[in-house]
């Protein structure tokens, strides 16, 4: 149970174009145990999806490039292995679910064939076995197996996403990466899909990386959470602790920005300003221009990761370099 499945070290991913270099992921480190779950949270441009594509080896060939660090999955560095070896891992040991269930399925193949295809390609079953297993997988995600002969357009949005989950889990992967899996779904359908992901994860002991901008969704499913900002993990820790007592000013800002069902707030406290341009990396702390606690030191000195009682945070306040002015003290 406690075996380390995935270990990302100092991963740096860039998109290189003719006239600029976009620093999408800047030296992130993350570990995931077998059966564990982590949520990647952040706003557009934080580097969540680029992190996922780096793990999957799905970065756009011409522009996307891992320029540093390693991704060790079951002892192998995924950044170093050749494409044909990666192809055996992708969809087999590591699967990914994408945001939009409408465009992820092939409209001219029956859903049964699409599930069976994965099993055949990875050579885990003969055609007959694969078709039988496809039916089992459909039942596992709560769709009657008779419907395996139907086409994607005959399914609703929620059911399509369940078919995609069935495809992703068909080869019983060790790691599932779900990128905004419920964002396109209505809230009652979202609840169904989240419950299903949670139940299947427990049943199959799959490890999960859940990417979402929705803090509530991550709170429902994950044990740990990594808060991403401008290509960095600025805070990491057990989800409940991070959400109850954030240590990084950005996490605090994020929690104060969202309207909460449980609280009767009359006014929100948004984070001022905007995410920085990812093609320019200023010195010092990347969050400084928006940080309510920033001091002069923050403009010149880049914060490092500080570990405090099982939590990681990247902020000079926690390095003891400037005074900690956040309301809650976590010392």
């Amino acid at each position, binding site marked *: 149970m406690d075996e380390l499945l995935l270990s990302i070290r100092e991963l740096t991913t860039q998109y290189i174009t003719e006239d600029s270099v976009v620093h999408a992921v800047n030296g992130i480190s993350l570990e995931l145990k077998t059966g564990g779950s982590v949520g990647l949270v952040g*706003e557009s441009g934080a580097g969540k999806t680029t992190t996922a594509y780096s793990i999957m080896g799905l970065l756009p060939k011409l522009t996307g490039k891992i320029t540093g660090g390693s991704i060790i999955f079951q002892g192998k560095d995924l950044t170093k292995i050749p494409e044909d070896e990666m192809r055996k891992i992708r969809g087999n040991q590591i699967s990914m679910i994408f945001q939009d269930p409408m465009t992820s399925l092939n409209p001219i193949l029956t859903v049964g064939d699409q599930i069976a295809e994965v099993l055949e390609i990875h050579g885990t079953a003969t055609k007959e076995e694969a078709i039988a297993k496809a039916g089992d997988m459909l039942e596992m995600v709560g769709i009657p197996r008779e419907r395996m002969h139907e086409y994607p357009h005959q399914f609703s949005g929620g059911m399509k996403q369940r078919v995609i989950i069935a495809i992703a889990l068909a080869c019983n992967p060790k790691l599932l990466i779900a990128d905004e899996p419920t964002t396109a779904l*209505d*809230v*009652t359908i979202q*609840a169904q899909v989240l419950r299903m992901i949670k139940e299947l994860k427990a049943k199959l002991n799959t490890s999960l990386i859940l990417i979402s901008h929705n803090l509530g969704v991550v*709170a429902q499913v994950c044990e740990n959470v990594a808060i991403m900002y401008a290509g960095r993990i600025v805070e990491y820790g057990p989800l409940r602790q991070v959400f109850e007592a954030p240590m990084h000013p950005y996490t605090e800002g994020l929690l104060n920005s969202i*309207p909460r069902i*449980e609280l009767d707030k009359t006014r929100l406290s*948004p984070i001022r300003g905007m995410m920085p341009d990812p093609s320019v990396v200023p010195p010092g702390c990347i969050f400084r221009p928006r940080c309510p606690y920033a001091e002069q030191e923050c403009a010149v000195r880049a914060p490092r990761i500080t570990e405090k009682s099982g939590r990681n945070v990247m902020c000079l306040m926690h390095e003891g370099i400037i005074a900690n002015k956040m309301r809650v003290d976590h010392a």
Partner: protein
Amino acid sequence: MHELSGAEPILQVKNLKKYFHTPRGELHAVDDVSFEIQEGRTLGVVGESGCGKTTTGRAILRLIEPTSGSILFDGMDITSMDKHRLRMIREKMQIIFQDPYSSLDPRMTVSGIIAEPLIIHRRVSGKKELARRVQKLMEMVELEDRLSSAYPHELDGGRRQRIGIARALALEPKFIVCDEPVSSLDVSVQAQILNLMQDLQDQLGLTYMFVTHDMAVVKHISDEIAVMYLGQIIEKSPAKELFRHQYHPYSRALISAIPKIEAAGADTATILKGEIGSPIEPKPGCRFAPRCDYCIGKCLSENPPLKAVGPERYAACWRAEEM
């Protein structure tokens, strides 16, 4: 948020219906919806895809012609108005759209977009006054002066939505339909826009009809909330009270399904059985009955009307009192 005064409702919608013809029959997008909004207040309209919330908003402005029913704005029935009078009254009724990108002309500059309604409705005499008015509007929505000659594609989603708001405010409206205005924005920008909309409401005494699928946003911004399901309002309540107690089984399921931060890991969602029914030629009886755990014989034959179930609370359910 806003004091309840003895003010007259600025908008009264009575038995509004919008049916669309389809090859398979009449699609009841909005089916007998009635409500009022008091001046200076916000009515939130929530529901899932296909519940008719957007169609209701557009029908109120007659951007879509209603099939039947009446819409009284400031006491005047706009459903029977001719084009000329409708155009005059539309100055007072505006709309903000979800996607600020596709609702802005990509070939116009920021100041051009904001100036356009002022020019069309001949609200200014001379270029100087126009420039002054545009500048004032940009200030109101906190858009930097230097952006006046920028094009929409050069701006981020938050700023684009500010342009949409400035344009809606140009003709000094009293009422604005806000159709998912923050749904495509990141949370920190979403908070900035929500705060701006509240400030503008306080300063200008605006009345909002706020259409969204986001339950947390609607709770935050609204004074009163109407929950829609398959073309009908199934519950109406003061905003905060709705989240404390629900009289309709659908509202209850909807609110239970919201993933909450506080209850990390605790799955409290009531999962609805089946899928949303078809709005085409709906069967008699309650639209929600096939998915409802409280369904009794009467629910299958008679559609329950929206009726009072408590102070300021309304529900369309035969068993609301038992809930």
